[in-house]
């Protein structure tokens, strides 16, 4: 099986290489057969890599310890689902997994281009298009109110750009695939057999990774990282081809949203895993590997905002292109520092000597980006001008400014140990205090902009509009800040954060209610005619805007959860039978102490009764496990979550003298909102990816006539 797997990744490399070369020659000579064949080769990479992945998973499931990777990362007693996770828990496997996801993305993109090509064939056949455009010129097409023909819709949709850019984007994706396939074949093959005798059992999966979140977290994170290759490919292709119009930026934006969604889920699952597994009561430590995932997230977030400047106003084109490039390059950089241990990290799970490969790839990618930009920079000239400093445009500029400063601060803090070692010969490590001190005020300002931005009008906002839009949110924000001060919060940052949360949530609520009231006035909202129907209709009409607001709600909820950590409490002590401990509003009573044993691990567990005001609340079971195959022990945290706070218990071991179990208790206010916020963010992103449902127009008594006939007429007069 390992032979077949090895052959499959070699064949995939040949296919990807052929796809790149044939694509380049085909495009240069406008040879349609060669281009088609290159695209088919690019598609075929995915099923062939899938064969390799199936082979590796088969070897893992069959406990074939002749293969070094299986012996190193799996063992017989490991449950089935964790055996699947073995695929990405080591260097070689995770690189193959990476290639697989990348080829999968390319496959989906190519499939989409093929299907859409068929769909729009009539509109884009040379004759038809010429006829359509001649008409367009004379009669100044389109007249949207009368619903242009479907073909016209299709021709103006981003799908055409997707199809037109696909051949070159496929070449770029193929080149990226080639790099990873080279690694899979020659630097880190997962199919290498052990040179010595086969061990009776494997070393086992790191116990820290034996959690449900850990089965999902790496694939999500990888889907995010890898996903940024697709917008990068389309953006680079558009730049090289000087693709006319702005639909290519829609294609780039849509794919960025997909990758952003996965990366967000991946990062939050990582935090959730750290919180539930590592047992230090926190979820984010500014570790280099965490930062590595956060960096492309920040630039992608900046892009998803600044892209609106390009779509709406034809501005910031250079900036957007470089944000897409930076996001891809930072994803590669993140992969590089994660895998090579360039910077010391807790995540030292996959260190090896593939560093030089990544350095070369990074430099080549950077050179290609630079070359494409300098050659075509006139293509990215801005079309419009800024009319006022108080406008939505400025809001976006400041939003991008803050996000990029945060990106720089995080990147700088992450690489500073290496920089200081080069410059000084002595390594200076950067702990979380640095990151917190620099980033917290910046994030608070970003929260403020989250509220302000949507309230500003494009081009110019008058003082009148400012007053109209800002009064209520500002009042609510101040009231919330004062209430949290009166409620006993003393740290300035959480107070400011709660105040800003009140401000932003009010602005969003106002956006929804104002929009829905227009729909209701118009008589919309369907059979029910009520608010829920109006809100639904409003959201579906402009999914991107209202989905975006829901994402903002999610981010605010996460901010509330993070601000809650300013109120954390903790306590620690030996807990012999019937001993008590106080934490937050709770009293903890030690009830029992048990031991268990199975094939995978032995465990000690403590039974703790939780009381509040003398009333029994629940029983919790913090435990400690000893994993036999890997010879490591691991604490199993017990958590009780409520909307107000988490009670977090860790069995910290036994007192060396008395043998009594030691309990470490944390009381973490508002923690659950981080996870709820993440779910809301993900749902909002999904919503924003749905196509808009356009209002059925044209009917007399439509919105303009009914709701605001007078002012509109006046304007036209």
């Amino acid at each position, binding site marked *: 099986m390992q032979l077949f797997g090895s052959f499959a990744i070699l064949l995939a490399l040949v296919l990807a290489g052929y796809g790149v070369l044939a694509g380049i020659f085909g495009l240069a000579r406008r040879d349609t057969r060669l281009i088609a064949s290159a695209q088919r080769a690019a598609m075929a990479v995915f099923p062939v890599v899938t064969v390799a992945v199936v082979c590796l998973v088969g070897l893992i499931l069959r406990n074939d310890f002749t293969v070094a990777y299986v012996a190193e990362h799996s063992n017989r007693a490991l449950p089935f689902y964790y055996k699947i996770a073995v695929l990405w828990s080591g260097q070689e496997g995770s690189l193959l997994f990476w290639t697989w996801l990348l080829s999968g993305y390319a496959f989906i993109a190519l499939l989409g281009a093929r299907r859409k090509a068929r769909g729009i064939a009539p509109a884009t056949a040379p004759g038809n298009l010429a006829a359509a455009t001649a008409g367009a010129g004379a009669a100044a097409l389109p007249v949207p*109110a009368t619903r242009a023909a479907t073909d016209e819709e299709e021709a103006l949709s981003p799908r055409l750009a997707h199809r037109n850019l696909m051949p070159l984007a496929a070449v770029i994706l193929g080149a990226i695939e080639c790099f990873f396939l080279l690694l899979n074949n020659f630097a880190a093959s997962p199919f290498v057999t052990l040179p010595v005798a086969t061990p009776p059992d494997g070393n086992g999966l790191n116990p820290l990774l034996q959690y449900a979140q850990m089965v999902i977290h790496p694939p999500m994170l990888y889907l995010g990282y890898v996903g940024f290759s697709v917008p990068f490919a389309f953006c680079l292709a558009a730049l090289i081809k000087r693709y006319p119009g702005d639909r290519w930026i829609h294609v780039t934006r849509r794919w960025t949203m997909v990758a952003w969604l996965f990366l967000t889920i991946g990062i939050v699952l990582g935090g959730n895993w750290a919180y539930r597994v590592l047992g230090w009561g926190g979820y984010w430590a500014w570790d280099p590997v965490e930062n590595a995932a956060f960096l492309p997230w920040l630039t992608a977030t900046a892009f998803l905002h600044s892209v609106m400047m390009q779509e709406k106003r034809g501005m910031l084109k250079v900036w957007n292109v470089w944000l897409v490039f930076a996001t891809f390059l930072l994803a590669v950089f993140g992969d590089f520092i994660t895998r090579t241990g360039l910077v010391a990290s807790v995540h030292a799970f996959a260190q090896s000597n593939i560093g030089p490969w990544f350095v070369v790839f990074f430099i080549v990618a950077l050179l290609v980006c630079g070359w494409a930009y300098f050659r075509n920079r006139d293509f990215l000239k801005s079309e419009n001008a800024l009319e006022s400093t108080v406008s939505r445009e400025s809001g976006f500029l400041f939003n991008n400014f803050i996000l990029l400063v945060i990106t720089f601060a995080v990147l700088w803090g992450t690489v500073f140990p290496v920089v200081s070692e080069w410059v000084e010969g002595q390594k200076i490590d950067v702990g979380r205090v*640095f990151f917190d001190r620099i980033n917290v005020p910046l994030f608070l300002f970003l929260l403020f902009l989250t509220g302000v931005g949507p309230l500003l009008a494009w081009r110019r906002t008058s003082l009148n509009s400012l007053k109209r839009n800002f009064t209520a949110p500002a009042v609510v924000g101040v009231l919330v800040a004062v209430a949290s001060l009166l409620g006993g919060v003393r740290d300035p940052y959480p107070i400011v954060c709660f105040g800003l949360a009140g401000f932003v949530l009010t602005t969003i609520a106002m956006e929804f209610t104002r929009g829905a009231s227009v729909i209701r006035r118009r008589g919309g909202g369907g059979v029910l005619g009520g608010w829920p129907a109006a809100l639904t209709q409003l959201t579906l009409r402009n999914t991107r805007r209202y989905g975006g607001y829901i994402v903002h709600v999610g981010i605010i909820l996460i901010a509330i959860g993070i601000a809650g950590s300013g109120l954390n409490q903790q306590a620690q002590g030996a807990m012999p039978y019937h001993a008590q401990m106080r934490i937050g509003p709770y009293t903890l009573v030690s009830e029992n102490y048990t031991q268990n044993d199975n094939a995978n691990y032995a465990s000690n567990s403590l039974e703790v009764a939780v009381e509040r005001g003398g009333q029994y609340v629940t029983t919790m079971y913090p435990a400690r496990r000893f994993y036999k195959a890997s010879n490591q022990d691991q604490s199993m945290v017990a958590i009780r979550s409520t909307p107000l706070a988490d009670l977090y218990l860790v069995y910290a071991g036994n007192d060396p003298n008395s043998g009594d179990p030691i309990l470490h208790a944390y009381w973490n206010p508002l923690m659950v909102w981080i996870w709820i916020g993440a779910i809301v963010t993900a749902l909002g992103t999904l919503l924003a990816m749905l196509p808009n449902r356009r209002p059925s127009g044209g009917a007399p008594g439509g919105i303009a006539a009914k709701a605001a006939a007078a002012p509109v007429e006046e304007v036209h007069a």
Partner: protein
Amino acid sequence: MRGRRAAGWAAGLAIVLSAATLRAETVAQRYPALASKLQCTCGCATPMPQECETMKCSTRKAIDADIVWVETGPMRNDRMAVKLQYFEQKYGSRILMAPPTSGFGMVVWIMPWVAAGLGLWLVFFSIRYWRKRALPAPAATSTGEASAAAAPPAGDEAALEQVRAEMDRELRGF
């Protein structure tokens, strides 16, 4: 006489007790001040006042003992920077929660704000640049006239009229 002796004993005891209390208090008070600037070096990067649960951590115990030693031993009256230097030399810079604010370590603190300054300059520069470009275009007048109505270039009127009609139609179907 007995009374005086008893008073002497009492005074002596009080001095010893208060000294002991003072010492105990100093260590208890000083420990968090120093510990909060240090983190565990076993790989968990947990701040020292917290417990490290990641794995069986012997590093933490050694650092704990060192903090107590520094705060009670000959170094107890040294400046915080000197104490931190002691830990940095013994455990490496990974033990410090925050990079030093002196020497090359200062660069890490300064650069983000330098970047912020540059970024802010860039933002204002861009705004000014775009605003300048906007000036020749017909901007809204102080009388509140619509900018479109201000001064369309000659020959544009027909196109503008056509567009307005289209826009009206568009919004009617809205």
